[in-house]
């Protein structure tokens, strides 16, 4: 998985490319832990994300909780496979998806 970060003012935009799973979720978690303090809002761009497993959902949930105390987190450009995972797991109701 490739993680690309872009800071626009107080918004942090993170683009993920590849697979967010047991192997790669710790990389995202590490990146978020290092960067979230400086951000008021977080945008996760999933345009190039192939799929997500429960290990990835765990990282999304903790990022969502951390950002809920600030300006919030949104997920954009979700593909069909990831979208189905969000629907089945109820994450579609928890996360802000655009």
């Amino acid at each position, binding site marked *: 998985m490739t993680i690309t970060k872009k800071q626009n003012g107080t918004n942090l935009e993170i683009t993920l490319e590849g697979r967010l799973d047991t192997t790669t979720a710790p990389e995202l978690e590490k990146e978020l832990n290092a960067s979230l303090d400086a951000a008021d809002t977080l945008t996760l761009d999933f345009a190039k994300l*192939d799929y997500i497993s429960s*290990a990835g959902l765990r990282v999304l949930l903790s990022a969502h909780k951390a950002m*809920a105390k600030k300006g919030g987190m949104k997920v954009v450009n979700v593909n069909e*496979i990831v979208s189905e*995972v969000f629907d089945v797991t109820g994450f579609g109701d928890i996360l802000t998806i655009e």
Partner: protein
Amino acid sequence: MKEWRGKAALENIPAVTAFIDEQLKALDCPMKAQMQIDVAIDELFGNIAHYAYGGESGDAAVRFNFDEASRTVSITFIDGGVPFNPLEQADPDVTLSAAERSIGGLGIFMVKKSMDQVAYRYENGCNVLIIYKRISVS
């Protein structure tokens, strides 16, 4: 039948995934079904690596079968660890809010939803978990 054998370790998830993807590509499996199967491998092999041997080292096998007539792929996960039937786990409450949420049980729940059938048996001292996925021609 094709088989992969190795250590039940998290670092082997990519190797198991590559082994299965190779079989699926040879069958012209549609990308969506392949991704769903890859997620299932991450969840199921991940569970074995995490829990089957209680922190000790142990072996696992993954078998691939394809039934031509029904165009159904079956993948069997075998470990000799602690007897554990993940299908007996209660489904998670997917209506809870973010604050009340935990991730426990979500992986196997996703597998049950995305596969056509999931079966478990304990046989000859081994956990045997089989997932079935029917694939259309892509």
